[in-house]
């Protein structure tokens, strides 16, 4: 196998982002409201639910990949979607990995607010549409920690995307699966080059988010 061209490197990197960023966006859109809701309310079954989420935060990605694989294979419950070995399958697997991280960190951040926080906001006559803004502002450190953790988790993850994506060239090959492949092939220089790109990507994204997180510390 010939070494990958610059074009191919760019393509793999772009696909990595094309999988990870939608996965992150979906996880945030679903996870934040759930995290806030669980964090601010008391209801029966809350403790088992939170401990389930905490377990999910540490779930081995390769096991998540296996479960998503079973769900998507031809005879599985979602086999009709024909998503297996497609970017959609990878996004789904990454959402399953990222969701508990986002919910867990969000609910911890929300839970650290004063018990009377909602009541104080209400008695100050803050209109409903501003309350969520105020809440997000209150817990922005936690929220950004959630985003950074989730992004790191899915960007560096290899087991699940390998299981459900299959590392198909030009279709589901992303940085992590490519690094693994080239390492196994003994193409260590290429693997190392890809690793540098992956780490660089994480550095840039985490750096940006951290800058945002710290900027509000007045």
């Amino acid at each position, binding site marked *: 196998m010939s070494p990958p061209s610059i074009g191919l490197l760019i393509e793999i990197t772009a696909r990595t982002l094309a999988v990870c960023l939608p996965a992150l966006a979906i996880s945030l859109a679903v996870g934040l409201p759930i995290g806030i809701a669980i964090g601010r309310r008391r209801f029966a079954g809350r403790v088992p639910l939170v401990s389930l989420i905490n377990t999910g935060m540490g779930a081995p990605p390769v096991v998540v990949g296996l479960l998503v694989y079973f769900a998507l294979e031809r005879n599985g419950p979602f086999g009709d979607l024909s998503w297996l070995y497609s970017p959609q399958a990878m996004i789904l697997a990454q959402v399953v990995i990222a969701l508990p991280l986002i919910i867990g960190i969000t609910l911890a951040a929300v839970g650290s607010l004063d018990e009377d*926080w909602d*009541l104080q906001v209400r*008695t*100050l*006559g*803050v209109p409903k549409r501003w309350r969520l803004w*105020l809440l997000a*502002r209150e817990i922005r450190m936690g929220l950004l920690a959630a985003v950074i953790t989730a992004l790191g988790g899915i960007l560096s993850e290899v087991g699940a995307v390998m299981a459900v994506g299959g590392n198909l060239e030009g279709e589901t090959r992303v940085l992590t699966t490519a690094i693994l492949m080239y390492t196994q092939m003994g193409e260590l220089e290429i693997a190392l080059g890809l690793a540098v790109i992956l780490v660089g990507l994480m550095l840039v994204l985490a750096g940006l988010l951290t800058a945002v997180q710290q900027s509000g510390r*007045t």
Partner: protein
Amino acid sequence: MSEAPILSARDLRVELRSRRGSFDLVADALDLFAREALVILGPNGSGKSTLMRTLAGLERPVSGRVVSVATGPVTMVFQRPAPFAGSVAHNVRVAFLGRQRSGADLKGSVRDALERFKINHLAEHRAATLSGGEMRRLALARAFALRPAVLLLDEAFAGLDADGQAALSLDLRRAISDTGVAVAMVTHDLRRAMLLANRIAVLIDGKLAQVGLRDDVLEQPSSFEIAEVVGMTNLVQGVVASDRRGDCALVEVDAQHRIATRAECPVGSRVWIGIRPEHLKLDVGRGAVDLIGKGVVRGVVNDGVAVSLQIDWAGAELRTHLMAGRGLARGLDVGAAVSLSASPEHVHLIPVRSD
């Protein structure tokens, strides 16, 4: 008061949850009038905070209702003020969220609010770095920024030292009179209540037990428990005697001790005799007419401003205060015998319940 109340609670029953279990808060009738300060006193766990939250509309009563005819906001300052993340100024701006205001207008309003409680110099500080007293001031500044018609204060002075409390209560009193806001505040600190209250309401075990003008409640508590809460700490049992002294009834504590009072209770009934510490006087031999007998000093606490005395009288422990450093207070020590007097109009009677 002839005007209509701005906030009124009728036949209120609220389920009260506390660490000591749950019981009901019951308030038959409680009114708050414009421009008045109503102080709600009660022991810990008597339901004061729950009553506040119910008046603020934050707790839903099981039955009864709270009616507000306030034309402005009804707001509340909590026992533990939790500032929002960000600057002190941001914390005040939160009160203006969603209200149309120009930048300059908003800035001026925030400055005015902070100045009212003397924390304008902290405007750009992070709210989380404020001291306990500054945080209380911020919470009050934020609440007043709303231009509320009704302000509900839950232990607004908790956790402050005596100087901090005194300074803050003076600023609060001025803010109240400047704005004309109706204030209901909960406290277990009697001195704050004395300074700020027009009227006093007392909660005992979740029941609204007495409501009235400040001095009426302080001097004529309707039960033993209320007497303790409002600082009528000198409470001694006696029996109303059949003979009288002039137009005063006489209450007999024992064979040697009889007290004259203007209060009336049926002859022969068992009563608590209540005398506020400030109305129990030491007689310096000027031949006062209201002598109630001799006592022995059992304790002297001098804090430099006042001298608190514990005096053994007729087997009961009475308390009174003197100004420090003046006359009598200088020579008094434990074991000294003193003559006590109490004028009949300040001797209050509370029927002893048979239960």
